[in-house]
């Protein structure tokens, strides 16, 4: 790089010379030495020499010289050369120099050192001295350095001095003191707890600058602590904003004749936090928000900045329709602006808003389409983000196509990772326009995402294939398609395919190629074998390929080929690969063993796995008796390593030998344990997969796909999910139509039409009927299908479990439940519960679906030993209904006898609430673990008489079978030791800024999963729960950094795993 530097600086000597001849030269003498340094650096080639140059000349130096040298050192650091030898001198300079040198010293310190640098301790005394100085500038410098960089442990030493400065007569000092305190709050919130009232004083300071500074603190406090503690300040903030907006501040604060814009933005941000989900507080700010919107008329960047902040606030707080209308108009201003920056913000605002109001996206659909073709990739990406938010079952294929197009052009790694994740999520969420589409999309993802994408994408995909969807036939079809497409891929050139993709291919072929009739395993083995010839493929992929081969060598022909390949690797240096090869040979020889370990896919479910590895007990106890160290799972070893230097906070009997089954597959990363070992030690939670590929890390992976579809349903997508499948094909059909039409138009019209078509396919399924629909036929299709599906027979309405999906799907004939009904649901329905159920914990009554005259709602009641589902059918029409028949069926769940008596009911109704039905399930243990999740969803689907997704959101299934287990800490300790099965995992806490992460996390878990919090000690919390059947599970949580380490123990093998999954979900949803 030195030659580049040189170019810049060739002009230098001349400049310096000319400066020398000027009167200001004296002032520049320091600079000219820097200049000579700069010059010499340009002539250097190596970094070392650079350091030499910065090295101060030997001998005594005056602070003045030191200052010059320090500036040189700063310059060197800036160039990227390390000048660590000068750090100590920087501190010395700050300590000893006069004011001027001090400034350079402080500057150098704040530039060189980081927060936890040891040398910082040496600075504390200097700072103390300067804080007490009578020279304002020294005090200012000290406060600046304190707010930039200060050791955490030393805060108590300077805190009183900084506090005093809050009452200083100079406002600049007060202002800096406030920011210094803010810094203290950031790094050690506990230590400034006692001065919160002083913050209030700063907020009321007569100098607006000090007040502005204090807003930083309040924004942070409100964000981190509960907003409710600061609701009383809303009034003050509103008043301040009113004054600012009204121009009451001195003219000094104007920027381009806008009064204190940054202050306004800060206030708006605070108001947004305060008014969030709080109607009363929100009402206080409506007026001033309206005023802000009105005032922000001038056409300057900074007014748009305020406007944008204002929009965000309006959409965050409790909605008020008038304001929303105005805000929507403002969003239009942004989106339609020719300025690219504003357009970007407009798209951002739309993305933010679109979940609440999809109609807004419809209004701007043409602009959005234009942005899709914009030359700026950032704008394009933002548009895709927006589209991602409005995706539903009907437009998914178009949107995914757009995203893939973008991905093919993008080279930025971050964008690729992010977008590939999103495409995969969408594809898994809506895998049907058709299976072919799904497979093709996933293939595109794998080949584009390559090896940078998140590892859980291929894992999820494989699991999806392995577990399958609802019907066996569809599963078979899907797998067959996958096999077909991969076989044809293997025929072409495979050298360009990413490793992950090759792994997926080999796994799928190994697992499912038997589904394709007429395909010889030997053929597959041969093709896989060709993969191995390529030098570019990694050892890991080779392992996958060999694993696939071992599954395929059923016939002697295939075996022969496979062994030939494997033989090459039996002497390979890589142990994982060699083991794989040796296993293949062994399994090939022993047919019995092979069928036991690697049965055909269908038979995998019956595979019995001794997950506790009890057959090894004798071996272990022998080894222990001989003095071997007890086994520690890797996570524990790792933790011990990381905690070596700090105190050990793990209280509960860690010294005991930890059970063997604990970590099993979750921690094992290498494929060495494939096949034989993995199928024996595997956790039985997901036997089919475990047996085949232990690289699938299932426990930690967010589960996004269930039998009903995507689990964390978004409101916007629910409607779409319930649509008739036929209408889902509408967009693609539309496109086909449009293509044929286009030929007849002239080019301009054609382009326009193209965009309109694109718009209609992108925005289909959004909003209500009043939304402008550019292509009529799509709507036509929808209403056709719905009108057929709804049987309306006068006053008699038949509600049948299997039919309701169509009933609720059509938006046309549906009457919105009147507010009266809603109120009725809240107040009236629960009172209809039988006396035995009244006092119990129950979920909210939720409306599942409604027709013209009937409405169906349900709630779950958590009885001590059962889950009772209370179903309410109510009449929402004015007239009375003569007869209602109701059919409840459930295949997957055993409905107890009590329910069967209700299965067909006919009776007369004329009252508001028709009847209530109570279905009592005594949940068996299985519902929580082993196939638990799937089963829970299974019955929900049938019982909620309609939109599965709606019902699903009532509460997570886990809480249905969990009950709190009241224990004391001592009891807990005893039980903890006695339980053998445990699982441990670190979960990411999303909200880093929360003050008490642990408590927030525990509360979330408690609420979502019905756990009992036994005790909280410092950064650790212990909780207990039991299943309905009375089997306990203990949790131990511990926060460090942004992570929550959860450790679960239970006497039942799979319970911890299963509960861990739910914990993870609860934390994520929080």
């Amino acid at each position, binding site marked *: 790089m030195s030659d580049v530097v040189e170019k810049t600086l060739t002009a230098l000597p001349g400049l310096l010379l000319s400066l020398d001849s000027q009167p200001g030269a004296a*002032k520049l003498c320091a600079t000219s030495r820097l200049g000579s340094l700069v010059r010499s650096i340009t002539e250097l080639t190596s970094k070392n020499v650079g350091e030499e140059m910065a090295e101060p000349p030997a001998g005594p130096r005056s602070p003045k010289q030191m200052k010059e040298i320090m500036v040189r050192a700063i310059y060197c650091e800036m160039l990227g050369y390390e000048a660590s030898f000068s750090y100590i001198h920087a501190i010395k300079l700050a300590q000893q120099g*006069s004011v001027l040198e001090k400034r350079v010293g402080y500057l150098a310190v704040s530039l060189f050192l980081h927060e936890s640098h040891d040398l910082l301790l040496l600075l504390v005394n200097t700072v103390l001295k300067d804080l007490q100085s009578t020279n304002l500038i020294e005090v200012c410098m000290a406060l600046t350095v304190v707010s930039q960089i200060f050791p955490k442990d030393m805060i108590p030493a300077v805190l009183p001095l900084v506090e005093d400065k809050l009452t200083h007569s100079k406002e600049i000092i007060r202002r800096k003191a406030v920011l210094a305190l803010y810094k203290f709050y950031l790094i050690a919130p506990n230590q400034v707890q006692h001065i919160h009232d002083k913050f209030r004083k700063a907020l009321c300071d007569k100098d607006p600058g000090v007040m502005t*500074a204090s807003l930083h603190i309040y924004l942070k406090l409100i964000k981190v602590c509960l907003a409710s503690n600061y609701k009383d300040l809303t009034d003050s903030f509103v008043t301040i904003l009113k004054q600012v907006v009204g121009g009451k501040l001195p003219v000094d604060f104007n920027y381009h004749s806008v009064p204190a814009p*940054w202050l306004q933005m800060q206030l708006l*941000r605070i108001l947004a936090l305060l008014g969030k989900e709080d109607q009363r507080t929100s009402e206080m700010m409506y007026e001033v928000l309206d005023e802000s919107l009105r005032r922000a008329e001038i056409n300057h*960047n900074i007014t748009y900045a305020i406007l944008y902040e204002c929009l965000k606030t309006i959409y965050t707080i409790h909605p008020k329709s008038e304001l929303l209308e105005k805000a929507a108009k403002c969003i239009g201003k942004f989106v339609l602006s020719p300025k*690219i920056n504003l357009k970007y913000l407009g798209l951002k605002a739309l993305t933010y808003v679109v979940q609440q109001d999809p109609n807004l996206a419809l209004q701007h659909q043409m602009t959005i389409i234009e942005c899709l073709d914009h030359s700026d990739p950032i704008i394009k990406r933002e548009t895709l983000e927006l589209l991602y938010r409005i995706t539903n079952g009907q437009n998914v294929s178009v949107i995914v196509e757009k995203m893939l197009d973008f991905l093919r052009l993008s080279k930025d790694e971050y964008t690729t990772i992010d977008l590939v994740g999103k495409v995969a999520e969408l594809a898994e969420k809506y895998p049907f326009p058709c299976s072919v589409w799904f497979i093709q999309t996933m293939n595109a993802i794998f080949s584009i995402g390559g090896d940078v994408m998140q590892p859980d994408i291929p894992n999820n995909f494989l699991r999806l294939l392995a577990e399958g969807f609802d019907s066996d036939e569809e599963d078979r079809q899907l797998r067959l398609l996958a096999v077909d497409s991969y076989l044809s891929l293997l025929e072409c050139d495979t050298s360009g395919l990413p490793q992950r993709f090759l792994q997926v291919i080999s796994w799928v072929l190994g697992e499912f190629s038997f589904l394709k009739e007429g395909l010889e395993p030997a053929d597959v083995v041969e093709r896989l074998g060709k993969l191995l010839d390529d030098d570019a493929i990694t050892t890991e992929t080779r392992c996958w390929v060999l694993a696939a081969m071992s599954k395929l060598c059923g016939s002697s022909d295939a075996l022969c080929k496979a062994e030939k390949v494997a033989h090459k690797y039996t002497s390979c240096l890589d142990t994982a690969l060699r083991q794989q090869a040796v296993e293949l040979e062994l399994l090939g020889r022993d047919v019995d063993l092979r069928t036991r370990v690697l049965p055909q896919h269908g038979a995998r479910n019956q595979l019995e796995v001794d997950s506790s590895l009890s057959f090894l007990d004798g071996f272990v106890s022998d080894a222990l008796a001989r003095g071997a160290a007890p086994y520690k799972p890797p996570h524990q070893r790792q933790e011990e390593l990381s905690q070596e230097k700090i105190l050990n906070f793990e209280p509960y009997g860690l010294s005991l030998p930890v059970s063997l089954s604990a970590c099993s597959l979750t921690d094992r990363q290498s494929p060495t344990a494939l096949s034989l070992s993995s199928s024996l030690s595997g956790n039985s939670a997901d036997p089919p997969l475990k047996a085949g590929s232990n690289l699938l890390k299932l426990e930690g992976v967010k589960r996004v796909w269930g039998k009903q579809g995507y689990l964390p349903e978004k409101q916007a997508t629910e409607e779409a999910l319930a649509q008739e499948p036929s209408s889902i094909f509408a967009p693609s059909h539309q496109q086909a139509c449009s293509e044929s039409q286009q030929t007849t138009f002239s080019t301009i019209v054609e382009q326009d039409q193209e965009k309109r078509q694109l718009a209609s396919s992108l925005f289909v399924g959004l909003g209500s009927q009043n939304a402008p629909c550019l292509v009529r036929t799509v709507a036509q299709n929808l209403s056709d299908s719905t009108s057929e599906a709804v049987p309306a027979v006068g006053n008699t309405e038949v509600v049948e479990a299997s039919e309701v999906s169509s009933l609720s799907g059509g938006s046309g004939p549906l009457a919105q439940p009147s507010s009266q009904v809603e109120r009725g649901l809240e107040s009236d329905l629960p009172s209809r519960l039988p006396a035995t159920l009244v006092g119990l914990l129950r979920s909210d009554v939720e409306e599942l679906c409604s027709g013209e005259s009937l409405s169906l709602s349900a709630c779950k009641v958590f009885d001590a030993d059962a889950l009772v589902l209370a179903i309410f059918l109510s009449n929402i029409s004015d007239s009375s209904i003569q007869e209602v028949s109701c059919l409840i069926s459930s295949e997957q769940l055993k409905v107890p006898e009590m329910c069967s008596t209700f299965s067909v009911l006919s009776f007369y109704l004329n009252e508001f609430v028709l009847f209530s039905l109570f279905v009592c399930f005594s949940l068996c243990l299985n519902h929580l673990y082993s196939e638990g999740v799937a089963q829970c969803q299974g019955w929900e689907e049938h019982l909620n008489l309609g939109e599965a997704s709606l019902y699903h959101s009532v509460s997570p299934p886990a809480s249905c079978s969990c009950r709190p287990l009241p224990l004391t800490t001592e009891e807990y300790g005893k039980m903890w030791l006695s339980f053998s099965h445990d699982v441990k995992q670190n979960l990411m806490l999303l909200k880093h800024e929360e003050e008490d992460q642990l408590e927030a996390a525990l509360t979330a878990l408690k609420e979502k999963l019905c756990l009992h919090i036994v005790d909280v000690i410092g950064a650790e919390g212990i909780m207990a729960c039991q299943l309905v059947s009375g089997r306990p599970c203990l949790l131990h949580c511990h926060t460090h950094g942004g992570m929550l380490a959860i450790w679960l123990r239970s006497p039942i093998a799979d319970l911890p795993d299963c509960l861990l999954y739910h914990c993870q979900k609860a934390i994520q949803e929080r």
Partner: protein
Amino acid sequence: MVAGSRPTSCRNYRCWIERLNHITESKTLKFALEKTTEDMEQQIIRETFHLVSKRDENVCNFLEGGLLIGGSDNKLIYRHYATLYFVFCVDSSESELGILDLIQVFVETLDKCFENVCELDLIFHVDKVHNILAEMVMGGMVLETNMNEIITQVDAQNKMEKSEEATLGMRVSFVTVYSIAR
């Protein structure tokens, strides 16, 4: 060339300002991420320079997080003045347009302090640039946005600098001439 401020380790609002010269590779004056190693810093600068420099004139001034600057939480906001790029890295809660104008204020202030600021001023008065920035952004939070106020503060310090030299009796006359010229 990168001139800039380091947001220190304050999570909420990390920002650094860089001045990227089209000729030289990027270098930093002040750096943002806590405990980043030297190499990491250089890598971030390079990446940032790479991202920013290849953008056209007629695209937006915002860049969303690369992996190096901390993913989607952070964004780059830059402004291009002739051969200089001023780049701020801020977290997602900051207002984009607000920061754009903050850069404008910063540049205008530099312009006033150096009288027609040019690249060389920024190279040779690294410390002054930092001091100006410290008046505007302190500990990662925007402290002062009023240009006159910033200049007053900076001038107060400069004056002190001069008076100090004066008391030392070094080239008194030159200094006086200089300060009058100001």
